[in-house]
């Protein structure tokens, strides 16, 4: 919404009293909508966004696009191969088993990365859930999660990615990126995820930065209260 106190006159009005009226209109009371409006909107949006049962099953299985089908087929073939080899395990070379396990892990990782780039938000959320188990040891997964956290168009996907990156907050690369995001993000949902993350896993410097943002009233008012309560402060 534009600044209604602005005294500039975008429309040509020659009459002096009309000009004063125009400026006085900027002082009309501007009431805030109730929180109920947001709640009702997001409830309706969730209903509207809910895919059909078939689409949900395909999405859940990661089969909503061709890459998903190819990866699933590859996993299936590898599964048959492992089953066959396990039957013959008495004669099996241990290094061949290790190689097969590595291949399966690799395919699983590719599937997760593929899900993180999927067009459907539900599949990206599933990918984030899977990625949260791999995030400790895999920098490519960390980077893919960071992209979701900072650039995803869906606030719910962004907040899930932020949660998944929780244990990485102490690393400089992830910590700096997420704290920069906290400085600039508009969505209260994403702000909430970041604030919770800092309160849970943040170091002293990150907590100080959070307090500063609260002091400057750059967080949603409810979040400022949340920070106060969590840190046992009366006011920031």
């Amino acid at each position, binding site marked *: 919404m534009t600044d209604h106190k602005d005294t500039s006159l975008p429309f040509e009005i020659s009459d002096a009293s009309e000009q004063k*009226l*125009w400026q006085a209109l900027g002082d009309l009371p501007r009431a805030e909508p109730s929180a109920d409006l947001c709640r009702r909107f997001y409830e309706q949006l969730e209903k509207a966004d809910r895919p059909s049962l078939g689409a949900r099953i395909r999405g859940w299985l990661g089969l909503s696009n061709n890459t998903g089908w190819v990866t699933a087929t590859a996993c299936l073939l590898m599964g048959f191969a492992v089953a066959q080899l396990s039957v013959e395990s008495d004669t099996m070379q241990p290094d061949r088993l290790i190689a097969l396990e590595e291949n399966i892990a690799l395919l699983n990782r590719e599937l997760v990365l593929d899900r993180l780039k999927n067009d459907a938000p539900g599949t990206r959320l599933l990918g984030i859930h899977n990625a949260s188990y791999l995030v400790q040891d895999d920098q490519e997964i960390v980077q893919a999660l960071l992209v979701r956290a900072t650039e995803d168009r869906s606030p719910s996907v962004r907040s899930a990615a932020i949660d998944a990156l929780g244990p990485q907050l102490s690393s400089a690369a992830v910590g700096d990126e997420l704290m920069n995001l906290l400085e600039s993000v508009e969505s209260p949902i994403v702000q909430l995820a970041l604030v919770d993350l800092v309160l849970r896993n943040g170091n002293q410097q990150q907590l100080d930065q959070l307090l500063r943002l609260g002091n400057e009233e750059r967080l949603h008012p409810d979040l400022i209260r949340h920070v106060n309560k969590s840190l046992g402060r009366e006011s920031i």
Partner: protein
Amino acid sequence: MRAVSDEQLIEWVANGDASCLGTLFERYHKGVYQFCLQMTRNPEQAEDVVQEVFMKVLRKAGTFRHQGTFKAWLFNIARNTTLDYFRNNKRHKVLAPLDEHAESRLVDHQSAEAVTAGAQKIELLERALAMLPLNFQEVILLGRFEFRNFEELAQALGCKTGTARVRMHRAMQQLNVAYAELNGDPFDD
């Protein structure tokens, strides 16, 4: 920071990602609410209209043609939805009476000496605005609070730029007259 444009977001909504409407809602629901509230003068009904506006955006996302801004398109839907609301609630068509809360505030204003003269003027201005026909109210509200040029304002009103210009001129004249009738004098600082 606004990384993704409104027009890109509505395209994603049209392609089936309804969650992007949440971002557009966060950007514009307060502005749409203010417009609907000034038109309906009833907070609960204004929220119902805002809800309906964004659900219409979801249903009609595929019809957005990028010939104007998303914001102008959104406020055009808000305007039409508000007019539908008035058609379905004919008793509200005459807007001069304020709601109970506003009337009680006005009485308090007139009786309490502590209230400033400036606040009284704003109260009178609100009443004068409410006395105008709907098409004059909407051009003033959208022109004053949401749009900075006649091209976008005309898109929001669904008319030609020249028509918007003339309507604004006449609306301001009529507002001035209505204010003078209520106050006894023309508006003055």
